[in-house]
């Protein structure tokens, strides 16, 4: 069996399912828009000071909506034991992780790209640049790695969604720092060398947690 094909099979099924249910799609698109617009209502948009906190608002919205989406996504996995079917099928655990990771990565990437024009419109700043897209990709990678890992880990726990945020938020704070600071610097039109250290940091973070998640994934699956 071609492993890439299997990974894509899992991810494709997840995405079709989300398209059909619309619940998660609304969460990642609607909820982040909602968070952004609440900030528009509560602060004065057109001052210099406000422009400085736009990156923080943007990334908070992404992380909040992604966490809620993760909780919803994995609740359907356990509803009828569909996740158990995956564990029982003759594919290695790594493939399951890759598959779930891919679908989550695509979802969080959609949400962070979708939120860019919304932020631009609501906060009156131009952030439609290619740099943001690249930034969104590397940060979404880290977010979906740990998100997938923790979401599968918390399948059995009581008060699942609270527990998921409790471990997920502290673990991804470095990504939040990186995202906010890089975005801030790009808005101020700084050159690449200013955000270089952050970019390398995020790549390092992505790589290390991807490896750790793969190493430890087997341990969280066994009951």
């Amino acid at each position, binding site marked *: 069996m071609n492993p890439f094909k299997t990974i894509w099979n899992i991810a494709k099924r997840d995405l079709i399912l989300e398209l059909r249910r619309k619940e998660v799609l609304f969460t990642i698109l609607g909820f982040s828009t909602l968070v952004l617009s609440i900030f528009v209502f509560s602060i004065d948009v057109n001052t210099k000071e406000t422009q400085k906190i736009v990156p923080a608002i943007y990334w908070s919205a992404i992380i909040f909506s992604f966490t809620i989406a993760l909780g919803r996504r994995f609740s359907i996995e356990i509803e009828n034991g569909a996740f158990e079917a995956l564990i029982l099928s003759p594919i290695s655990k790594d493939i399951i992780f890759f598959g779930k990771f891919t679908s989550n990565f695509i979802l969080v990437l959609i949400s962070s790209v979708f939120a860019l024009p919304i932020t631009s419109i609501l906060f009156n700043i131009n952030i439609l640049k290619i740099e943001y897209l690249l930034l969104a990709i590397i940060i979404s990678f880290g977010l979906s790695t*740990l998100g997938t890992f923790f979401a599968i*880990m*918390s399948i*059995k*726990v*009581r*008060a699942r969604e609270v*527990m998921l945020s*409790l*471990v997920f*938020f*502290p*673990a991804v*704070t*470095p990504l939040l*720092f*990186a995202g906010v*600071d890089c975005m*801030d*610097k790009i808005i101020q039109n700084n050159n690449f060398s200013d955000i270089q*250290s*952050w970019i390398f*940091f995020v790549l390092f*973070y992505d790589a*290390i*947690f991807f490896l*750790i998640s793969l190493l*430890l994934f087997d*341990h*969280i699956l*066994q*009951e």
Partner: protein
Amino acid sequence: MKITKLNFINIFIIFTGIIVVIDMWMIFVWVPTEINQGAIQRILYLHVPVAWGSMAAICIVAFSSIMYLYKKAEKWDRIALSAAESGAIFGAMMLLSGMLWARPVWGVFWTGEAKLTFSLILFILFIAYLMFRAYFPKGIQQKRISAVIGIIGAIDTPIIYFAANLWERAHPPLIAGPAATSDSFISQNIILTLLFSVVTFTLVLSSLIFLRYTLRKNEDEIDLIIINKT
């Protein structure tokens, strides 16, 4: 466990108690008051050791978690749990003492400074570990998943610290109190007291872990008795 029984743990705890008394005497009586900050500075003799203790605790959690996943022996899980609980207490003490110190010296309870951000996240990680454990159905999987959280948390902490430092360089704190000017007079007595406090609180942490470990062992034994009876 009878208190009269003089096993290793009891001797160790009594020894720790004596050291704590000596440490308190050093902090409040022996060491001279620091010139710049006044009496407030004495908080640091508590703050620095508990901060060290909470970091030592997360290392112990990580080490015993790895050992648990590797050896699957109950012992390591108990050590990890004991270290996490003690670490959470130390973390809370670190945050509280830090804020009490910062208010008069920096003028605020909290800033976005790297070490503060880091210690808050460290504390949340301890809480997450304990909450997850408490909310998970009892069994092997609970222990295994706790171990996984312990390992990820411990790997995350230096990364968070590094990120917080990068972050701080980008956003220099607005408030710089006398502590930041670094012209305060550091006498040999102050350093000695600080070092002694660090040793003392390392002992306190170890005693807490020892005590919690025996307690946990007894809990497991009681569980076993209940299982065999039903």
